């Protein structure tokens, strides 16, 4: 029995990507694997949304891309967080935590 997967709420994909990359440069596949692993397979990123998101973040200047060799020595495109990306991550993380805390509070109180 696989655990029940949850669809990503709107806007959280960027946050997950930025957070994953804050641990160090990664290629696309590794990002989706990492998120899936850490979330105990609850969160799974669709490739159809991952790559457009990566290209969008790159254009926004929050991450930058570099070609390098993967673990198994294949040519892969690695993404890393830029300085503005780091700042963006902090703001977004902060917002997210406030939001979830607030929502949780309301849910518990009622």
């Amino acid at each position, binding site marked *: 029995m696989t655990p029940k997967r949850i669809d990503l709420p709107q806007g959280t994909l960027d946050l997950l990507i930025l957070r994953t990359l804050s641990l160090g440069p990664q*290629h*696309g596949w590794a990002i989706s694997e990492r998120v899936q692993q850490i979330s105990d397979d609850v969160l799974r990123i669709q*490739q159809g949304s991952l*790559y*457009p998101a990566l*290209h*969008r973040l*790159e254009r926004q*200047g929050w991450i930058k891309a570099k070609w390098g060799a993967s673990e198994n020595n294949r040519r892969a*495109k690695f993404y890393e967080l830029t300085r503005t990306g780091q700042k963006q991550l902090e703001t977004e993380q902060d917002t997210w935590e406030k939001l979830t805390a607030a929502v949780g509070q309301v849910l518990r109180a009622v």
Partner: protein
Amino acid sequence: MLSDLYIRLRSLFRRSKVELELDDELRFHQEQQADKYMHAGLSRDAALRQVRLDFGGLAQIKEDCRDARGISILESIGRDLRFAARTLAKAPTFTAIIIITLALGIGANTAIFTLVDAVMLRALPVRDPQQLVVLQWSARDWPRDLSTSSFGDCAFNQHNSARVTSCSLPYPLFKEVQNQTKVLAETMAFVGPSPMSLSGNGAATNVQGELVSGSYFETLGVSPALGRTLVPDDERSGAPAVAVLDYAYWQRAFGGSPAVVGQAIRLNDSAFTIVGIAEPEFTRLTPGKSVDLWVSLSQAPSLGKQWAGRSNPDNWGLVVVGRLQPGVSLAQAQTALNLLFMNATAHAPKQHWETYNPRLDLLPAQQGLRGIRNLYDKPLLLLMAAVGLILLLTCANVAGLTLARAAARQREMAVRLAMGAARRRIIRQLLTESLLLSFLGAVLGALLAPAVVSGLATFFSRNAWSPLQLDLHIDARVLLFTLAAALLTGIGFGIAPAFRGSHISLTSNLKGNTTTAAHHMRTQLFSLGSALVVLQVALSMVVLTGAGLLLRTLENLRRIDAGFDTRNLLIFDVNPQLAGYKDEQIPRLYEVLQRQIAALPGVTSVSYASEALMDGGYSSRDMKIEGRSDKSKVEILTLRVGPDYFPTMRIPLLAGRLFNLTDNTNANRALVNRSFVTKYLAGRNPLGMHFGGDDPQDPQWEIVGVVGDTKFGSPRDDDAPTAFMPLTSGGVSFEIRTAPAPAMLMRAVRNIVSSVDTNLPVLRMRTQSDSIDRLLFNERLVARLLGLFAALGLLLACIGLYGLLSYEVSRRTREIGIRAALGAQRGTIWSMVVRQGILLVALGAIAGCGAAFALTRLLTSLLYSMRPTDPFTYALSSGMLLIFGIFACSLPALRATRVDPTTALRCE
């Protein structure tokens, strides 16, 4: 921001590299994923299959990535365009038909819009035209004893409007306004143009001369092309007589020779010096008015134009135009100038202005100087509306054709959807195709338009009363209009097929089963395609009905009984005063002319009168009639006539006698027409009765005869009480009754006049039917163009119907084959197809009748003895639609009867 720009530019210029990298990146992901599945124990094939399933449409992801990088817009538009061009080139007939259809629709719109632009929209060709204002006053009624003249610069008075309006102002008031420099930086006045006889440059010619204040050119900001323009000093009494030439006139009459500056000429037999040429950009002030030269107002007496003079304060004839002082609003200027106006009218006791509640308004010059807009703005708007309907019809037509084609392209769309193309991408592709088509159509249309426009210009100027200046060139505004029309059309006809094209069932299409696929689309497509045909028929019904109403009106007007014989009548005007004749010399001149022209072979008889009948103008006077119980004055039209007038015009004598030699100047004898008698002297013997003005010095006319009624001013006029008196002086219209076609005698008549006196210019030689045609210009313009549009609309509707039924027949080939195999007769199959077409035509005609019912009311003012709901016209246009409809249906129907059952059944 920098990264954004960098990535966009890189996407644009390093497209292939970026594309390769994207491929690499995604392939790497797929390989990693496949490795993972293989580790988990799947076979390589199963792993790859699973990866593809996970991934979904690869093309779709790539497209999204491109979008995310912001490549797309520019680049994919380019790609769409290239693809669209290839697709269209593959179906050349379809493409050609559509482009030609669109070119006709858009070209017609461009042509009419050029006309609207020239007459109604284009800014005055002077410096900062938005600062110019024109002074216009209004009053409850025309003040008595006010002598005004108008050259049609401003709005005509509507019969139903509560107040009368006029731009004509007296010279002293103009001078006061000119001193109001706090509100108007500069002010000028003009009157005219009116005909002047110019000699000193070859034979005497007739020119249009305008009398203007010395400030005219300064106020407008018009500079000379050569020499100088008029300056304020030229307005001084006793200043040298000088003239400034219009640029186009200078080119036309003087061959653009620079030696003209300083040349001496004679205007109305008075010496003038040409001092300069106005700049070429200054083509007109009032729309449609053509001016050949300008002279100062102070020269009015020497030109014999005392009415335009400055001396008489009761003479209101000047149009006053000012340039607003910067920072002064229209309302502020109006308040200041209205005060002046009220003061001036309060000090003009003769007119009793206070009882007329007068007021002065300032209008922007663009709006206030209407000129030919007075005549043409209504028919032009009407034509614009009609041509808009044609464009709509074109859209419906092309949409129908595109829709049928979209059905034929279902396979292609299905393949592209299956490959992962997004629906919006397909819609965009299809819209690109239709926009490309409409732009090609627009280009062709814009190339066609100048030919149509020059045809229209000829039609206009051939029918103008006085030389008509119509600047019909295609400018940026017109091109913008065409572009907008193309854009709207492209979206208009493309949108339905595009959405339809993107919503198709994948499986049935890919299976290649055309019948089921078509069946799937059938209900929807059929109704949309049919609706488009119904729309086309309805629109062409509206235009057809409009054209029919106008054509029948024209027929009615042409068949009107004018009261005199309008055929074989040649008319020309002369004004001996312009050539320097004294009053007492004139009768002798007319006698000579009459005798010599009558001697020409082909001339039956000759006479002359102060005005030509059915020629647009008339004169009238308020007079009292003896023996009437009602003592007030009544309006009587008056015409001064020469010897033999009534036999020449073939106006019958009803009672009494015609003029004879004893009825000379002092005899005060007159003839009246039948309406005069029935309206004012009913039941009494008119002979011997008197009528005349109420001033003791006014002559009292004795009625010696009664003649038949004639139309005086125009065919639409009612028969009005008219009095005819012997002609003694002034300019006249000669009336020449001819045996052969009157136009053939034009040259001979001209020769006679110049042999009598070379300095006597022949003005406006025309036949009576030319004059009537000119009077009916608006009706003819609208009828002719609507007729053309109606033919175009009918043709388009037929093409639409033909296209739909052809498509239906080819789609139902198999069904028809089965029917034929089962024994259906050819006649049955024929009528099956035709019935469908006729049903659509009938629906369209009914809808069109309803729309026409609502829209033809706009034509009411142009119609004559005919109601906009005239049933005969409606029946006629529905009948025409039906006949042409059957014709358009019968070709596809014929093809249906030729379907060979064996081939049809094998084609699966």
